[in-house]
């Protein structure tokens, strides 16, 4: 397959890995901020292939994992209102809130439908004019523009029954929050691929300038990721910190301007509640006042009891990169993908599910 096979070339990969082995012996901690990267790193066994001095950590990059239990509780409560159809991306339905999940709510009679895009949600709204169709807007800058586009489309079509529960989050502020906490000493960051295809590579510049941390925007194939690690290691060796864009086929430095404009037209930046991290200023996207009629939060009266986290679950620490799933007492015992306790075990892109699914060097 074109544009895929080239980036899986084992010979090229082996050469790059050898190069990294040759010039780096310092202990280095790298963090990736993208669930897709976490999965790719495990799927291709990159942690095993990199030299021992390079440690890879996973940050809060899985869009469903970072959704706060309180926000999920809201989504579930919305589903229980008569004549409401909940539309959601797939993984989200399995994530446990404080008391239930969308999947359980569905089994109990809520009308929860998995959609592939907001276009599907709009179609459902058109077909069901007598019902309220709520789209659970989760995800980072990658998904927010398409949600913004759907709001504009709903406006244009004068759809009166389409609503967004906006739980969108944005990446650079959470990176800053993780670095400011200082819980993990990160030397390098693998910047997310899909998010950067929207925002570009420039918004991370402050991390190189102010925090003196190396970084590279990476794609999702093994060569992409090895290339990014190579760039980061070289930056650390030369004490010269930049944001290198190693994913030029997908990411422009300035980002996707029309998508950014769309996002800005519909959303404004506000505080967001992150699972395991709490409220982080200016890290979320809320619908602008102009589009309040599409805001599920404003339209529906949602009352949920205070959220609670599952007992013993360390998803919060895992999301911050402070702990690995293996350090959790529940991991593989009471918490498995079949019977998940925390969100990181539910989502296919969650750290715990990834550790479980792929093992590390199959030493479970």
């Amino acid at each position, binding site marked *: *397959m074109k544009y*895929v096979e080239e980036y*899986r070339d*084992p010979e090229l*990969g*082996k050469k790059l*890995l050898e190069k990294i082995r040759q010039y780096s012996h310092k202990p280095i901690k790298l963090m990736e901020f993208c669930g*897709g990267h976490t999965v790719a790193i*495990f*799927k*291709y*066994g*990159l942690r*095993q*292939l990199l030299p021992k001095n390079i440690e890879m950590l996973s940050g809060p990059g899985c*869009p*469903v994992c970072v959704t706060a239990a309180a926000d999920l509780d809201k989504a579930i409560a919305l589903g229980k209102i008569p004549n409401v159809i909940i539309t959601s*991306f*797939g*993984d*989200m*339905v*399995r994530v446990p809130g404080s008391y239930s999940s969308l999947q359980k709510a569905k089994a109990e009679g809520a009308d929860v439908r*998995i959609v*592939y895009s907001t276009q599907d949600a709009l179609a459902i709204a058109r077909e069901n004019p007598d019902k309220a169709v709520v789209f659970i807007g*989760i*995800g*980072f800058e*990658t*998904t927010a523009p398409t949600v913004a586009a759907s709001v504009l489309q709903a406006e244009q079509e004068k759809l009166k029954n389409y609503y967004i529960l906006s739980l969108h989050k944005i990446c650079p502020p959470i990176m800053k929050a993780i670095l400011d906490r200082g819980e993990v000493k990160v030397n390098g960051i693998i910047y997310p691929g*899909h*998010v950067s295809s929207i925002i570009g590579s420039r918004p991370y510049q402050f991390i190189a300038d102010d925090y003196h941390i190396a970084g590279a925007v990476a794609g999702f194939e*093994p060569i992409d990721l090895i290339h990014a690690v190579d760039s980061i290691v070289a930056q650390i060796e030369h004490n010269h910190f930049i944001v290198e864009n190693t994913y030029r086929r997908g990411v422009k430095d300035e980002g996707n301007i029309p998508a950014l404009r769309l996002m800005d037209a519909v959303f404004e930046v506000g505080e967001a509640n992150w699972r395991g991290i709490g409220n982080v200023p200016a890290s979320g996207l809320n619908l602008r006042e102009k589009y309040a009629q599409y805001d599920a939060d404003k339209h529906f009266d949602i009352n949920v009891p205070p959220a609670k986290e599952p007992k013993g679950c360390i998803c919060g620490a895992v999301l911050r990169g402070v702990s690995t799933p293996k350090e959790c007492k529940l991991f593989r015992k009471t918490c*498995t*993908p*079949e019977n998940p306790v925390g969100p990181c075990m539910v989502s*296919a*892109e969650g750290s715990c599910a990834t550790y*479980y*699914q*792929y*093992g590390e*060097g*199959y030493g*479970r």
Partner: protein
Amino acid sequence: MPPITSMEKAMEDKILLAHGSGGKLMHDLIQSFLSDIGNPMLDKMDDAAVFDVKGKLAFTTDSYTVQPLFFPGGDIGKLSVCGTVNDIAMSGAKPLYLSLAFIIEEGLPVAELKKILGSIKKAAAEAGVKIVTGDTKVVNKGCADKIFINTAGVGIVPDGVNISAANARPGDKVILSGNIGDHGIAVLSQREGLKFTSPIPSDCAPLNGLAAEMLKATKNIRCMRDPTRGGLSTTLNDFAESSKVGINVAEGQIPIAKAVLAACELLGLDPLYIANEGKLVVVVPAKDAAAVLAAMKKHKYGKNACIIGEVTAEHPGRVVMKTALGASRIIDMPVGELLPRIC
């Protein structure tokens, strides 16, 4: 023009609750079935099919529900015959007789039922099995999703054949009969209205002919299974777990059609976990592998067969894939529904 019978009139459009109530409509509906799939044993319409068998019996049952009912390369009718035929064939048995039971949601267009019956007839003829007993129920609208089909089947296991998921031994070879993922992607793309430039047809097919050819090559087949729901990964994990052995497979050796691979890349799905309906995977002693592989390649449903891995005494219960870059990772069973990724 001959007068229109009550049946023909009712058959003009939709299945009615009355079709399931045992009266005239029911009788006429059954008669119309018989004209499609009938044989002397079924035509008797006795309460039970009575037949002679000699030898060790294989007996299986499965229920079928698929949305949409019709997809590229097959439909629920073909699936309900092939699925049960294949389950029998995977024990090494020669499938002989099937039962066929419908639960139909009121309102199903009769034309669709006819089409499904046509597929059943065709698939049964290809597999060389007879449908000898059956049942039809019609339920209220909303109590079923268009149509559910249950089939059960019996077959005879030849002497000297002993196939079980628990029989794999270290050193054995693992052979796959062809490309994986076709069925799951065909159904998913049809269901979700995803259009690819070249539509991906389901691989749905009866595999008893292929299995028979393989058994002619050697009776030493240790494990054999059709990797349906849960995909290849689930079947390999079943073998590893039941036999208390490890299985090693190599990335890049598992055949996958380019279109399926592309669809999987697009949707964020792993072809290892996607259902197949016309593939089988076998474990055979290394010394018999070449003969079995040759027999498979000669058959129309095994043209793309290849050795994908081997059984090892290491890491019992686990399936490990060696990646092209030289790392290794566990291939686990899938959990829950397969869902496309978010971003």
